[in-house]
């Protein structure tokens, strides 16, 4: 059984004044126990919003408008307050993009561990300073940091070290699911590679389910089992990583792949995707990728393609994953 399954998830940003933005639209997905899944797309396509929705971290003006999120057999989409907090313990954790913003600048790393352990302590459970230090040392060891980092403040650490601290904090309650939201984006290439390596090791060792959110398809393909591609708030492709790399279904995935190349090759040609993702405050008919799509046909302008099973994955594209019913429907209208 899937650890997490979400169906019909819709998230809107509804500010008190101004436009309503529908950032996540009818997303269905499932994460199997112990699976390492990637979620990619350009900025502003709703990746982080979806990650926040799945871990119930949305804050106003964002709101889960519709949809069901079943985590470990329990519908967490309707949980609240104390129940949700109890569910989070050993349930799910989130690692954010910037280690600096995720850590409290006036607390030492050790205090962060103490805060988490105490906030989620069972009634009667006590965490002495020595116990916190011991647990902190153990967790820092897992992310290859020295125990003396416990007495440091976030500003005394490098970006890579801060990100490792965030990962250690996420591990402290041994969650079943960890969502990594752009964990390496602010880091330089070599540090990025090392941090991703640590994440992969930890995932193999602890067998937690991981969702890696990133705009960098290259990084995602290197570490995940399966990739979800998101565009304009929708999932447009879902395939095992290797299949996606060798046989992308959706033209958007194809275009993203063309943006990579090998610096060692004889000829290097980088692709780009002209135009930009659609404005999510509008709701246009048809497939949202149509204006940038080289394969667009007439039906793409009017009918939004559903995510349908194709090969070992799913894709939402009239051209690549044609739906018999849609075609016959169109013929009927004509």
């Amino acid at each position, binding site marked *: 059984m899937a650890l997490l399954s979400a169906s019909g998830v819709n998230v809107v940003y509804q500010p008190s004044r101004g436009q309503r933005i529908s950032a996540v639209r009818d997303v269905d997905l499932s994460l199997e126990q112990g699976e390492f899944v990637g979620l990619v797309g350009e900025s502003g396509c709703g990746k982080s919003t979806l990650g926040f929705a799945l871990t119930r971290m949305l804050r106003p003006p964002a709101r889960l408008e519709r949809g069901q999120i079943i985590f470990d057999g329990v519908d967490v989409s309707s949980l609240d307050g104390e129940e949700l907090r109890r569910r989070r313990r050993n349930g799910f954790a989130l690692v954010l993009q910037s280690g600096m913003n995720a850590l409290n600048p006036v607390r030492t790393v050790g205090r962060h561990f103490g805060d988490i352990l105490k906030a989620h302590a069972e009634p009667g459970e006590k965490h002495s300073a020595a116990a916190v230090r011991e647990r902190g040392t153990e967790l820092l060891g897992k992310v290859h940091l020295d125990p003396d980092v416990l007495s440091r403040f976030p500003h005394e650490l490098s970006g890579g070290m801060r990100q490792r601290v965030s990962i250690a904090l996420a591990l402290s309650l041994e969650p079943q699911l960890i969502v990594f939201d752009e964990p390496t984006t602010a880091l330089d*290439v070599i540090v990025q590679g090392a941090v991703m390596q640590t994440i992969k090791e930890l995932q193999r060792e602890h067998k937690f389910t991981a969702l890696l959110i990133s705009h960098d398809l290259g990084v995602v393909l290197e570490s995940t089992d399966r990739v979800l591609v998101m565009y304009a708030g929708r999932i447009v492709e879902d395939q095992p990583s290797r299949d996606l790399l060798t046989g992308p279904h959706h033209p958007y995935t194809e275009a993203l792949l063309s943006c990579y190349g090998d610096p060692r090759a004889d000829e290097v040609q980088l692709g780009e995707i002209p135009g930009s993702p659609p404005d999510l405050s509008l709701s246009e008919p048809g497939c949202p990728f149509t204006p940038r799509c080289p394969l667009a046909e007439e039906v793409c302008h009017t009918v939004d393609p559903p995510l349908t099973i194709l090969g070992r994955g799913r894709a939402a594209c009239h051209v690549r994953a044609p739906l018999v019913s849609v075609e016959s429907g169109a013929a009927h209208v004509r």
Partner: protein
Amino acid sequence: MSADRAATARPDGARRTGADVPALVLNGVTKTYRVRGRNRKLVTAVDDVSFTVAPGAAVGLVGASGSGKTTLARMIAGSQRPSYGTIDFGQLAVHRLHTRGLRRYHHRVQMVFQDPYGALNPLHTVEYTIARPCQNFLGMSARQAQARVHELLETVGLTPPAQFAAKLPHQLSGGQRQRVVIARALACDPDLIVADEPVSMLDVSLRAGVLRLLAKLRAERGLSLLYITHDLLSARVVTDEILVLNGGRIVEQGPTKRVLQHPKDDYTIRLLDAVANPYAIAAAAPSIDTTAASTP
């Protein structure tokens, strides 16, 4: 201070001929810092770096963070001074320049920084941002400047120009902002552009567009380019020559293609291995035939 006559004598905005474009020459440039704190340790950020950016050349300066790239860029921009060594651009001794000399220098050498969000004043329209250097450096009237802004916006691919000129930075996407920053750098018709990680904050899907723009400008305007990055793939696309910087020192240099195909230094190899390259994974372990699996 010796006056650079060539810069003032030339008609404003005129296309440069190869002959009057000087090279940027760095000779033994070193920068040391005294670290604050108890032990006041001396840190050498840039250590005895010498190289030349010839007229019309595109040179890449690559390295991980902490390798001294940005310190070097700041010294070349004239915002910091080297502790030792010289930086010369034609008759201008950049390492000694003050206010007025720097102004003359910035007429000819412009910077493009990494963060297009921080590089633009959020209260100024695109037109104002790009018109300022036209008025300041080229002495244009407001009307002339406006025409030039539209021309520059077209050059960087922000069309229709009239529509983009009226916008404020928050109304633009990251890629569009970086194009505005490039247009501003081009406004005073410089000879050399120093671009410090110009695409690393942009979506992968937009990188190729900005890189292609830099290559086009170089071809059409005879601009020289110093391209600073940790991304070897983009360096491969825009530069002819590459310098690999580690711990403030140049550890390897040569034609870009040769250095990347046959790296000699361990550090260059580590940088190459760190590039997220999905095609390398595919080549390393061919996948199972997917068509067989999907056929019913």
